[in-house]
Structures are given as C-alpha cells and as structure tokens.
C-alpha cells in the first residue's frame, strides 16, 4: 500500500493497530485511548510509534508526550468535522511537532490542499485510487492569503 508524503508517493511503512488488535512488529500507530492504557509497554516497542488523534481528543493531554511519536494520524470520522484542521495547526504551531502528520479516514480528496496548509504532510486515503488525484489536488492553488503551518514548524 502507498501513501503520499511530502508530495511523493511512497510505500506505507506503518500499520494501524485497532484498540483490540495485537501489537505487531514494525512501525505501528495506536489510538490515544490505547496509548493512555498501555503507555508503559508501548514505549519499549522496538520500532517507531505513532498515535491516532480523533476530533474529540484534547491535544493538551499529550502535549508533553509528543516526542514519543514519529507519526501522528488525524483520523477523520467525517469530512465535515473541521476540528482536525485546528488540531493540525496546533500540533505544528503550538506544540512544535515536526514528525509526520498524516490525514486518514473519511477526509475528502478535495480537502488535501487545505490540510497541507495547516501542516499535514502525509495522506492515506481510504480508496487507494485517490492517491493520484490527491497528488494533483495538492497543487490546486499557487497563491494564498494565510501563512502556511509547514513553513513555520
């Protein structure tokens, strides 16, 4: 499976682990709830660790723990839920997170330009056929009125 990262198609090096899923080898991402429950075991995971953020999650709760994560996934339950756009902005600008910030779940391909402007640098669409479209949508606009979060990590 492939993902978009920094405007390139690359192989997905991460596995999403469900809350009742088994922890496997390799780079894994877990939900905030699972991180809360199993932090002690997870920090000794041999490979890289990622966390999945939902719109309801309060970023301030994990602000001090971001250094554990090489990946933060913004898991869209619904494209209309715009809270994750603010979460992305906060991660880049307030909490100085510089790792991979990845949109997953039910975001719209037509939202990738805005997402990139608030600091999202990786995209994993539900439908792999959308990867090519999303690469082009990242260039929908050559101008903008607002600062980019990526320029101010």
């Amino acid at each position, binding site marked *: 499976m492939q993902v978009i990262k920094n405007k390139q198609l690359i192989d997905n090096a991460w596995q999403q682990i469900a809350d009742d899923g088994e922890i496997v080898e390799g780079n894994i991402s877990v939900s905030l709830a699972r991180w809360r429950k199993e932090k002690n075991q997870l920090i000794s995971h041999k490979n890289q660790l990622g966390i999945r953020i939902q719109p309801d999650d309060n970023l301030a709760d994990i602000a001090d723990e971001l250094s554990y994560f090489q990946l933060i996934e913004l898991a869209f339950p619904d494209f209309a839920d715009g809270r994750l756009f603010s979460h992305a902005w906060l991660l880049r600008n307030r909490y100085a997170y510089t790792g991979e910030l990845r949109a997953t779940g039910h975001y*719209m391909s037509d939202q990738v330009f805005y997402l990139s402007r608030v600091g999202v640098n990786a995209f994993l669409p539900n439908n792999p056929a959308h990867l090519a479209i999303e690469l082009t949508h990242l260039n929908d606009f050559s101008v903008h*009125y607002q600062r980019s979060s990526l320029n101010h990590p």
Partner: protein
Amino acid sequence: MYQYNNTDQTLVDERVAQFRRQTEQFLNGEITDEQFRALRLRNGLYVQTHAPMLRVAVPYGLLSSRQLRKIAHIARYYDKNYCHFTTRQNIQFNWPKLEQVPDILAELATVQMHAIQTSGNCIRNTTTDHLAGVCSDEIEDPRPYCEIIRQWSTLHPEFDYLPRKFKIAVSGALHDRAATQFHDIGVHLVKNATGDIGFRILVGGGLGRTPIIGQVIKPYLEKKHLLSYLEAILRIYNLLGRRDNKYKARIKILVKETGLAHFTDLVEKEWLLTKDALELTEARINTIKAQFVAPPYDVNAADDERFTNAQHDHQDFAIWLEHNTVAHKVSGYRSVFLSLKAPEVPPGDLTDSQLDAVADLADRYSFGEIRSTHRQNLIFADVKQANLFSLWQELTQINLATPNIGTATDIICCPGLDFCSLANASSIGIAKEINDALDDMDYLHDIGDVKINMSGCMNGCAHQSVGHIGILGVDKKGAEWYQLTLGGSSENEAAIGERLGPALAKNEVTQAITTILDVYVKQRLVDESFLDTVKRVGIEPFKEQVYASH
C-alpha cells in the same frame, strides 16, 4: 474601490478551475452527492425548489459599473433576465443551470468577482455600513478592514469546515447600520480615552431561530491585533462549537452555554499565545486604505442650488428627495437610494436592462460605483446636488424612484416558498398584498420609519425578529400561517421583536399590518416614531385590535 492584484486574480481564477473540475467529477459520478454538496455550497451554489440558486459575493456591498454590467450579462444569458439582492448585500441568481455555473464563475472572475464562501459552514461575506466613507457620523471608514478580513477569511484552510456558518460585520460609525449586534462577530471602530482608534469586538449575536444580541468580548483592541483576535475566536469556536445538532451549532449557542466570562477567558488565552505571530502592520493597513480614497469631489458642488427650485416646481421630486436621499459628509453632495421595492416587483429584484441602466447612471452620476444595502436597495453614494433632479427623472423612467425608502413598503423579504426549498410559507405574495394595501403615499409618509421584515421560515433570512414589524411564515398542518412580532431593531438600540399573539392565516396578514399601523397613528405622540410608540405603550393595544375579531 479595491482593485485586485495578481494574487487576488490568480486565486479567483484557480478557484474557478477547481470548481469546474469538481463539477465535472460530480457529473461523471466520481464524487458523491454529499461531497459535491459541501463543495458547491462553498461556491455559492444551492439546489432549490425549481433550479439551482447561485449566490454571488458582493464584498461589503460595493460594486463597480463594470461589475454590474457583468451581472446584467449573466442575468440575460444564464438566467431569466433578472437577479435578486439579498440582506447580506449579495446577489442571487435563481435559474442557473448546474453545468453552466463554472462558466458563470469564470465570467465573474473577469470582473474581479466570485461566489467563494457565500454559503456552507465557513466564514461568509463580510458586510458593512452602506454609507461607509460618506456618512458624517463616521469614526473611520470600515471598508479597508472589511477587505483585510475578506482576504484573511478567503480560503482560510483552518476554518472552512466550521460547526456552522459564520458571519462578520464591521461598522465605523456611531449609528450602527450594519446590524453588527446580530452577527457571529461584530466589529466596531471606536476611539479610546487617549484618542486612538481601535476596535470593539462583539461575539455571539445572531438571528435565525434563536435570535440573540451579541455581547462585548473585547472593549478595545489595537488595530494590529484584528486578525489574531478573529483567529482566536474562530479557533475556539471550531474546536468547541457543537456539531451534534445543527440548530445549536452557531457560536451564539457556544457563548450562551459556555457563559461570556469563560468564553472570553478561552479566547484571551488562545490569543495571547498567537497575537505576536499575526500582526497587522500599519504599512499593510495603509496599502489597503490607499484603495479606498475618496473620489475627486467638486469643491464647488454646494454652489449650484437649482435643485431647491426644482423641489418647489415638482412635488414628486421633493418627496423623493426627502425619502430616498440622505446627507453626505461633503457639502453639495447627497447619497441616493435606488428603491428595489416598487409595487408589483418582488423586493430586491432587478432586471438585466435595469442593471445596465443603473451601471450607466452610476458612471454619469456617482463615480461609477454602486452599493447594495442590507435592506435590499441600492445606493449611489456620491451624487452632486446639481444632478439630483435629472437623476430622479432617469430613475423614475426605470422604476427605481419609488419614494418609499424606510417606509412600511420598503419590506425586507426572502424568496419564500416561491423559490426556496427551506421555506414553509410564501413571502413575495404577502409583500405585494401589503404594498397594494399601502398604496397611498401620503399615508405611508405620514407613518414614517417602519421596518417590516418577512421570512418564509424559521431560518429567518429576512431578519424578521429584528423588524419593527416581523412576519414569520410557519407551516401548520400543511397550511401557511404567519407569526407577527413587534418592536425588533437591528440598530444601536438592538432588540428582538415580541410575539404579538397566535399565528394568523394568510388572508389575515395584510389586514393585521394595516390595523397595527392604524393603532400606531392613534397612539403616537407628536413626532414619535413607530418603534418608540411600541416601546412606550407595549404590544397590548396592538394585540387587542389585531385579534379583536378573533
């Protein structure tokens, strides 16, 4: 007025290309109805009762003659030869074809216009005082700040998927003509104790089904912090605003449920962390201000006083002058209202030939600029008094000189059941009935300032809850009924109208309006306005008469 630079033009052109592609993808079945809905709404495109409806942005109500000619062209070639001016100073087309909308947007882009964010749960068109820059009670011209807000809010990546729509209004005058107390954010230019000019920020006002008067969140904000403060409010709203119920999703509900003190605390904390990174420099303000310089007024304009003679010779002209023009800050000039409320015409509608004629008149009489008002009329802001008589004659010929500005037939009216898929009841027909019943101009002028606002449903597009007389269409078991309110106001003494009594049947509404006006005539003191009488005597005397036969 503001002229696009390369960035502005490129952004609008690229937006057209994006929407053209999105429309093609939708027509090819590559994106879902639900996705396309979100995308088209953010380009002003609704799907209505009969056809799509396209809402075009008129930033802070300012149009050039060239833009108006383009609107006329679009009305002629893509629509049924007319357009509609809305209460948010925008323009609506009621009959465009979905597949032609990208072409319409491309046409608009050639005259620096667009339909970006005129609907959808995002930051909408910023509105302002229709007399900005020409009224004598102004602290500072609000339009440069409107333009700064327009740019900041356009395609703002963080705030395009808010819990609900978001409206900002800016006023620079002592008298609030922009209904700022009924916006999600109201911005007032104010002078502080040391004489510096900054902003007072209001939050949480709104109309619709839960009308609420906005409250002051920041009594005085330095100019350089305008955008950072707006951004802090928007971020708190985006994160905490309710998304579980669309009727409770506006910021007014968040402010109410959170409490102003706590909400203010949240915003202030957010703002303190971001304010230094988003400063509005004086250089930037001045660059924008330079695009709103006053036109080259004739310094001798006051010398020509022939229009006073014309008033003696032509009573109709004198009446029009009194009702449809207002004083200008420059001696020898007046601002002229073009009434879009002629009898027999749906309020706010203008035909393609009228649009062309208005554009020509603007070129000849008002420096090529036209303004739209939130009461759905137009204004020539800068008319030399020497030209008033000939302008009146020409406006009369195109049916735009009905001397009813600010009177009971200057009705704000939504499209209602005739066009809108949300409506429960018709409104245009009732407006016409009221117009017919009040066809005696002397009576109308004697009654004076009465603002009647009528909406065909709870969404309240015509701001009925702040009408001096509000009329709200409701559905009762499949029949159209109308709820009346009295005493609302969107101006300085903001108030939400009080319900008069049980809803009335369609054929009782006009009679009720004339009864209300008759009660006013009987009850009023010398020189007392309708609103003041309602405030003084309360709604009982009105209620008694309206429901006397029930």
